[in-house]
């Protein structure tokens, strides 16, 4: 939606409101003047008070006048005034300038520059700027925040709604310290004017969305520069991903996720180094975060100067990606001159548990050192599959990464032998819910098959199928999937695992076209194509897909049948496999629809919830379901 439409909508609502109000109450309800400022209109209202658009006749300029809610006692009133004065003394190019502070009708008011630009939230949501632009806007906002910290001010309510970006790209942080009213327990109170961000709790009470509150603040401690740092990192992470880093659609669920430090699983956008920095800034313990905001900004700025391979870049051509890798500075492991031009996600930090699996992990540093005796590849493959089945994704991916780099070491970076292990790694990433990494690895394999090796047509087709399948799971690349599928169809027939993936991809396409029954038929063919006895676990997601389609068709009986099989195929003690968790939850839903075996349904949903939480996914749907079942 365009800005014009939105502006129109806001103006129209304001017009209707003013008209209806004046007819109901006459015109004298709003103050006409505060200090020397003539009130033009009301811009918003919240727990903090009311903001007016006003005109400063002496200086002939528009200003925003914020009249603060009455504080509980004189001491609090004094403190607010003191803080407002401190803010007024702060001059920084990235901070909304305060013009004047005073009292009116016994209430404190603050006159400040009227920041017209869209808020960072609106800007990101509407214009979908590239990662680099998002990063630099946030770095600018961070500078404003750091300047405040330098003079001892804490923002307390940093969020994308409080940062403005004008048409020239100037970024201004506003609303310093104002969200806090008379006592600190009120920090969770909300800005009623942005009710799109609010959800009703089961009991029917509106709560604020404390989406940017640091865990220690949730627990009742006072806000500090470190909690501002947390809020900043959450906001930036959300802007990069288009999704809040802590899951939960109800304020309570999100607050719980924040307090527990449970971040959403799955891929995040932006350079890995940026993500790492953000993860650190979002640490539950303030001491684990950066010493100050400047340190975080340094980490971000350093990375944003360097070319990177980011999620956004992944949407561009493979050739562009290849260029990006060779110049990437944060990736010593692949920066040598003869490194492969395929682009791959950076290997993750080594998982200690990999050592337990008896798999050594080569790195640049120890490449020349004596190697441990190598295990047969099959054994490692099984170890990876075993870890995947158990839901031990970090370990599984490490195993597949090691396996791939061993092949690379033995056969070289441009060997077609590298295609298969790269595809396996991509599949493991997909199963681990790291879908962007999965797509990047699959593209790396395709690049290898098409441009740099004498790959067989079968290898090329396998890579192409997996790329198409993963494109269907990527918001930005979804529209390209059908073209990729066309290329698959133009090539040799596919067999084996690729055939399963092709049928699965086709069922997703059909499902999107709302051809649900043909979609089910494809999935059933896909199930039949999984070799019997070899990898029954591969049936699991296909059965889950079938089950959800039956649920959508309001056929809980058939849904339950497919999902029972899924649970049977995937279940093993202690597994937190995400596909299994999905199967368990959907089965619980189907059983609920059938009014069948309620205690088992609740037990299944609880187990699914535990699995999701083990991977940092707070699934509010399960919470809602358990709430409705009266079992939470």
């Amino acid at each position, binding site marked *: 939606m365009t800005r014009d439409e939105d502006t129109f909508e806001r103006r129209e609502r304001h017009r209707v409101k003013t008209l*209806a109000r004046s007819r109901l109450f006459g015109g004298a309800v709003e103050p006409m003047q505060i200090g020397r400022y003539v009130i033009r209109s009301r811009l918003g209202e*919240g727990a903090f008070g009311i*903001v007016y658009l006003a005109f400063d006749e002496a200086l002939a300029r528009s200003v925003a006048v914020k009249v603060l809610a009455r504080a509980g006692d004189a001491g609090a009133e004094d403190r607010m005034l003191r803080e407002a004065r401190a803010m007024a003394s702060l001059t920084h190019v990235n901070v909304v300038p305060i013009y004047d502070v005073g009292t009116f009708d016994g209430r404190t008011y603050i006159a400040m520059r009227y920041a017209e630009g869209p808020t960072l939230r609106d800007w990101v949501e509407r214009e979908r700027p590239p990662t680099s632009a998002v990063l630099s806007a946030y770095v600018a906002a961070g500078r404003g925040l750091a300047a405040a910290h330098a003079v001892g001010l804490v923002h307390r309510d940093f969020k994308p*709604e409080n940062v403005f970006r004008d048409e020239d790209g100037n970024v201004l942080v506003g609303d310093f310290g104002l969200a806090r009213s008379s006592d600190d327990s009120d920090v969770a109170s909300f800005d009623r004017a942005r009710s799109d961000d609010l959800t009703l709790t089961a009991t029917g009470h509106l709560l604020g969305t404390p989406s940017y509150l640091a865990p220690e603040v949730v627990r009742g401690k006072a806000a500090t520069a470190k909690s501002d740092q947390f809020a900043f990192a959450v906001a930036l992470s959300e802007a990069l991903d288009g999704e809040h880093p802590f899951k939960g659609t109800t304020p309570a669920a999100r607050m719980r996720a924040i307090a527990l430090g449970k971040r959403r699983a799955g891929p995040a956008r932006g350079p890995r180094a940026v993500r790492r920095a953000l993860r650190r800034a979002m640490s539950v313990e303030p001491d684990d975060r950066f010493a100050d905001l400047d340190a975080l900004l340094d980490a971000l700025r350093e990375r944003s100067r360097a070319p990177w391979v980011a999620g956004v870049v992944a949407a561009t051509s493979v050739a562009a990606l290849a260029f990006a890798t060779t110049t990437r500075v944060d990736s010593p492991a692949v920066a040598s001159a003869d490194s492969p031009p395929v682009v791959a996600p950076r290997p993750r930090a080594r998982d200690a548990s990999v050592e337990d699996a008896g798999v050594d992990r080569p790195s640049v540093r120890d490449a020349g050192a004596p190697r441990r005796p190598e295990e047969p590849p099959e054994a490692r493959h099984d170890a990876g599959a075993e870890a995947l089945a158990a839901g031990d994704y970090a370990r599984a991916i490490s195993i597949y990464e090691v396996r791939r780099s061993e092949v690379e070491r033995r056969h070289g970076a441009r060997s077609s032998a590298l295609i298969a292990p790269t595809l396996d790694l991509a599949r493991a990433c997909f199963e681990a819910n790291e879908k962007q990494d999965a797509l990047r690895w699959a593209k790396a394999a395709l690049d290898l098959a098409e441009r740099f090796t004498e790959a067989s047509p079968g290898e090329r087709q396998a890579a192409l199928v997996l790329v198409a399948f993963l494109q269907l799971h990527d918001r930005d690349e979804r529209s390209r999937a059908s073209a990729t599928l066309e290329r698959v169809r133009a090539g040799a027939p596919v067999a084996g695992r690729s055939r399963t993936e092709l049928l699965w991809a086709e069922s997703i396409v059909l*499902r999107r076209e709302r051809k649900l029954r043909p979609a089910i038929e494809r999935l059933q063919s896909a199930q039949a194509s999984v070799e019997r006895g070899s990898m029954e676990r591969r049936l699991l997601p296909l059965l889950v897909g079938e089950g*959800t389609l039956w649920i*959508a068709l309001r056929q809980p009986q058939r849904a339950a049948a497919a999902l029972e099989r899924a649970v049977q195929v995937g279940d093993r003690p202690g597994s937190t496999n995400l596909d299994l968790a999905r199967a368990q939850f959907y089965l619980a839903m189907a059983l609920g629809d059938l009014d069948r075996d309620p205690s088992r349904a609740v037990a299944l949903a609880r187990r699914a919830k535990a699995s999701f939480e083990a991977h940092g996914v707070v699934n509010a749907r399960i919470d809602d379901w358990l709430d409705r079942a009266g079992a939470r």
Partner: protein
Amino acid sequence: MEDRELLEAWRGGDRSAGNQLFERHFDAVYRFFSGKVGGEAADHVQRCFLALVEGRDRFRGDASVRTFLFAIARHELYQYWRTRRRDGRLDFGVSSLADLNPSPSSHVRRTEAHARLHQALASIPLDLQIVLELHYWEDQTGPQLAEILQIPEGTVRSRLRRGLEALRAHLTPQNDDELLDLGHLLQRARPVSSAAQ
């Protein structure tokens, strides 16, 4: 002050109490009419609040002010469409906004998915559209909806279910979760209220 106290004060002549009540509920009432009526929305909003302050005897003791306001607003909306149809024979269980009004004005649409959802909402029978909006956007519970719509609670539940089914039939989901989880999608597509600075 509680809504009920404000309403009592307003009925007693306290305009500032009335204004506070108006501030609390304007957005919800505006949202209710938004896209559903042609002409001047302020007329409808004004009539709702007037009916609220004047309609002492119609106010059931335990209903919340907001629920009562929605009941008034629904009545006002149906009245509006009935008077626009000369024959007056209008079945809101069948007619959708898209039937009544070829180009319903738009709610605020934040994303493409939300736009599709709002489009679909305008395409299902008005009775079903209203029950979904009041439930998912205005957080009205089953008993409250029964009060607003003047139907038994059991009928509310079946109407909600039929509403979701009708909506599903009008949607082309872009991702798999949408199919399963229309309720959440609806909640997220709640129209934006006025943004504060």
